[in-house]
């Protein structure tokens, strides 16, 4: 038996080699670079924890994480909340009274933005929000520079991301609702429970695993967000929409502060790993 199991190792070899070269070594190199001052050419100079000390004092760094929190609200929390109401309305209201085809057609429409490359979604909105010729100003008869005004830029990016993300929770929650035993709802209906009470006491507890998955994946996506920022604002105006991923990109490729960029990326990676483990721990405890 032992020999039999051992033989299966062979099938992992191609991946182990590639994994080492593409993930493990680059990740360690990045951590290593974060302890140096390096412009990308020449020899990196070892400076210990200086980059990290500098990070703690860098206002831009703290701002970028605050913006990350705002994006978690826009990409994870708001879409989950709205998605729950929509999925439940589509599933047990529209689906039952207007037929499942109406429900799935509406679901497909909500999902459509999700299929776009996020950079293309940014191009679409960048055009619609253009201060002089954009459609949004024309519709509302306004003259706002949504992405160029430091007071509006973050809120605008958040709104675009809600539009982009919304379909994902709707699809996942509707699939989850199919698992729920209809007997719960029937019993509640006999007791005369209102739609809201059923939503709160049956729907949400029953699809808790799906809610967890959506919150986890969307929170990670929000922490990593890069494409929409690159396309819509490049972190600006000023630092109004700066996020860690774009901040590290800026240091890597435009300012030639490779060591500093590596420190930002390392901190971001650690935060994401910690968030993932926390979520999985909470989920485990729940079950």
């Amino acid at each position: 038996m032992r020999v039999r199991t051992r033989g299966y190792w062979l099938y992992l070899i191609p991946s182990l080699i590639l994994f080492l070269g593409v993930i493990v070594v680059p990740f360690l190199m990045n951590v290593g670079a974060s302890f140096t001052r390096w412009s990308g050419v020449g020899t990196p100079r070892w400076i210990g924890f200086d980059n990290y000390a500098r990070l703690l004092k860098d206002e831009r760094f703290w701002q970028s994480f605050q913006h990350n929190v705002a994006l978690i609200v826009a990409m994870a929390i708001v879409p989950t909340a709205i998605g729950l109401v929509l999925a439940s309305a589509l599933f047990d209201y529209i689906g039952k009274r207007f037929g499942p085809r109406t429900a799935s057609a509406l679901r497909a429409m909500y999902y459509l933005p999700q299929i776009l490359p996020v950079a293309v979604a940014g191009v679409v909105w960048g055009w619609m929000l253009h201060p002089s010729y954009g459609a949004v100003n024309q519709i509302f008869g306004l003259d706002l520079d949504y992405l160029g005004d430091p007071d509006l830029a973050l809120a605008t990016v958040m709104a675009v991301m809600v539009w982009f993300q919304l379909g994902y929770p709707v699809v996942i929650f509707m699939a989850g609702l199919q698992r729920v035993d209809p007997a719960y709802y029937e019993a509640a209906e006999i007791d005369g429970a209102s739609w809201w009470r059923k939503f709160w006491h049956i729907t949400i507890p029953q699809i808790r695993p799906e809610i967890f998955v959506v919150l986890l994946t969307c929170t990670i996506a929000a922490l990593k967000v890069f494409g929409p920022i690159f396309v819509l604002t490049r972190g600006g105006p000023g630092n109004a929409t700066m996020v860690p991923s774009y901040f590290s990109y800026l240091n890597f490729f435009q300012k030639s502060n490779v060591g500093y960029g590596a420190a930002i990326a390392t901190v971001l990676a650690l935060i994401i790993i910690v968030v993932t483990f926390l979520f999985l721990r909470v989920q485990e405890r729940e079950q």
Partner: protein
Amino acid sequence: MRGPGRWAVLFALVVLAVVMLFPFAIVAINAVKSPAEYSSQGPLSLPDGLYLQGIIDFWNRVDFGTKLWNSFVISASVAVLAVVLSVLNAYALGIGRVKGRLSILVVFLVANTLPQEALAYPLYYLSKAVGLYDTQLAVIIVMTVIQAAFGTYLLSAVLGQFPKEILEAASIDGAGRWRSLWRIVVPISRPTINVLLIFFFIWTWNEFFLPLIFLISNDTQTVPVALAVLQGEKFMDATMSSASALLGVVPAIAFFLIFQRTLTRGVTVGAIK
């Protein structure tokens, strides 16, 4: 709720759907307007006729055909290669149950959630060192490994439930391990493998960060990178911008229509397992 109440709920949901689809519609109608019509009528009027010059000009100017082909080559190669790797790994982990498989799976999962920024600069540096910088091969290799990390995780769970009797019967008939994999395991797991193929293809098509870093020249760039980089160029007036947005949207909608069934099935499989 009966009578008018239910129509009110439907109406609210339809209004929301219209809001969600509005950007698609507005991009489409303005991509076929002439610049003169746009400046006199604005973005909200329906087009007088079909003015395709904006789309044609943009297409030629950025050589959009090449970009489509680049995106296709990269996405298709990554999809196939990442599925092959996922199948090999999942065979060892799900069916072979090799020692330490749980920790291996955790490593794959962590690799999949890592931000690409934490790998980007070393990958950029290494690709220059081995002469792969600005080649599609570099993007293909990196994306294959990242996608395979997810595929391994998903497929191992599926293969963990593979009926053992079939494999035992095959080995009694003299089929070796390699043969069993390709003749039995892969055909039976076809539905999951198809989901992975389509998802890897679309995810890679939509990928932005790594192609942006690796592909700097015009003949290697992918669709999302080209569109993003061109935004704000001088020649991009209002109608040409919407033409460019439309050209980015159309392939995505085409994939959505072609793969709709697999997609909705896959979104849920991928999320829960």
